[in-house]
């Protein structure tokens, strides 16, 4: 199995895509930071010390401290865990819903198709941030709520993709054969048709993960995402809304901004590379 992956045409295309490799390596790096955050962070990210308010970077505080004297480097490291966690959690839920709804809609058609299509149309009537903020005001602000909201709103793109794929694939002969054999519909959909959609699903997951990390950052920057005491990339930038910070304390807003941009950029590179690798025309 492994040997065939390394010999495949997709892998060869991917190997030529330097930016995609850069993206993959950076993403793995961030995931390792997130997993081993406890080991990497030199200090407790939540320990306050008002005597150390806005200390500049030094050997003791690698990236300085924030307004209430918390070690900024430790918060950035733990923020990696929170921000990637929100993104991956949201992607997980959105992928399951997108595949399930898309499969039902595309393969079964009929009333369920009309209902799900209408639902997806309703969701895309709203700019995503408006709908997210509207729901946050109703259900309240918490880490779990944010993951659930991302998961339950961002499936629409994948749903459309899977729906149209299933609609065309169900006309294929292998599906007719399976139906003639009396294989259960559920099994046809998710054991036989679905594997043909792995490539577009992977590309969608990668590019949407980038979008979710950006959305978390934006919402937390506004103070509406992850609760403010939890370290996340967006929450770290929240401090930059203060004019004093912008004038005097560059370590408060430059490092998290660069980290977010780098993370999103590498995920986008990876997604682009995967799309080229899976695209037979490239």
């Amino acid at each position, binding site marked *: 199995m492994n040997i065939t992956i390394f010999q495949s045409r997709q892998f060869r295309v991917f190997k030529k895509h330097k930016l995609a490799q850069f993206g993959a390596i950076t993403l793995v790096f961030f995931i390792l930071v997130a997993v081993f955050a406890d080991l990497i962070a030199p200090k407790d990210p939540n320990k306050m010390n008002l005597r150390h308010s806005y200390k500049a970077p030094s050997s003791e505080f690698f990236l300085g401290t924030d307004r209430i004297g918390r070690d900024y480097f430790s918060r950035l490291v733990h923020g990696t865990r929170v921000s990637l966690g929100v993104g991956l959690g949201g992607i997980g839920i959105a992928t399951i819903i997108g595949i399930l709804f898309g499969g039902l809609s595309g393969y079964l058609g009929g009333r369920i198709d009309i209902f799900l299509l209408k639902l997806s149309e309703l969701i895309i*009537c709203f*700019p995503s941030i*408006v709908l997210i903020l509207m729901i946050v005001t109703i259900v309240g602000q918490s880490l779990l709520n944010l993951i659930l909201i991302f998961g339950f709103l961002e499936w629409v793109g994948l749903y459309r993709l899977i729906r149209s794929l299933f609609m065309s694939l169900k006309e294929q002969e292998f599906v007719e054969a399976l139906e003639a054999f009396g294989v259960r519909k559920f099994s046809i959909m998710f054991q036989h048709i679905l594997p043909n959609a792995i490539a577009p699903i992977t590309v969608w997951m990668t590019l949407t993960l980038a979008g979710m990390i*950006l959305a978390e950052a934006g919402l937390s920057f506004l103070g509406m995402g992850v609760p403010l005491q939890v370290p996340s990339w967006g929450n770290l*930038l929240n401090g*930059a809304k203060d004019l004093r910070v912008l004038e005097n304390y560059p370590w408060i807003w430059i490092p998290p*901004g660069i980290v977010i941009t780098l993370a999103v950029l590498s995920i986008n590179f990876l997604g682009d590379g995967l799309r080229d690798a899976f695209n037979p025309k490239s």
Partner: protein
Amino acid sequence: MRAFILRKLLNIIPTIFLLSLIIFIGMELTPGDAATALIEPDTPVEEIEKIRESLGLNKPAYIRYFLWLTGIFVGDFGISLNDGSDIATVISQKLGATLELMLTSFLFSSVIGVILGIVSSLNKYSSTDHILTLFGMIGLSIPSFFFGIISLKIFSVDLQLLPFGGRLSPDEMGNVRILNLIQPALVLALLEIAAVMRYSRSTMIDVLGKDYIVTAQSKGLAPWRINFLHGFRTAVTPIIVLLAFRLPGLIGGSIIIETVFVWPGMGSTFIYAVEGRDYNMVMMISLIVSVIVLIASLLVDVLIAIFDPRIKLQ
């Protein structure tokens, strides 16, 4: 054509009703109503009941939904839960500021994005193309507010060339007002340029690979004729469609940018309402935004039909 537009209009009416129903349910699920917004904190319970009765808040939900919906059609959007101000008035005051910001950045990003996209596609795989593509990717990846903060730091804090934020009233001198507008509009536009450029580039490359372009080349036509009269004319339809599809993104982006630059538009009003748990205001702005997006998508359909004769109007 008229029948086509009419049919599209009829299509979106049920969606608008559904949206309004969702918004109404959202307001029902959240605490507070017009009575709690109007009373003083220590009003006796009987007094509150009287106010509720006089405002019709004790009627069954479906009657209140009907009254609320008919109210919207005559411009009664209800009142803010925080200060009792009329939501329709607040929105009409803020809408101009948001439109000013969005239109400016829309024009900037459309023109520059399309031009850069064409430049990129005509010099495919050159170093210009690679650099533009890389910048486009960075533009898509950098959080808009981070970009805004960098811009503020450079132009307002360090160089002190531009004001720190806010908006001057329309009575002020034109050239002074521009200074306030230019920074948020350009920040919003620069991020959009990335998306427009990428899309224009791939559309142009797609078109320029078509057989009739090869035919035109083999006939020895001048390259600019081929690129612009034959190529760009075909590419323009999908590009126009994209320009119109960007509206939801533009609204979403302006919410964050307005907050960064303290621009007194719908976006910052929305954020203040969310922060202050002003549920009525949040829901009404959401409803208005969603209806605007819906109407914009209708316009897209009409535009496609005008520009693309292959689309049948039945």
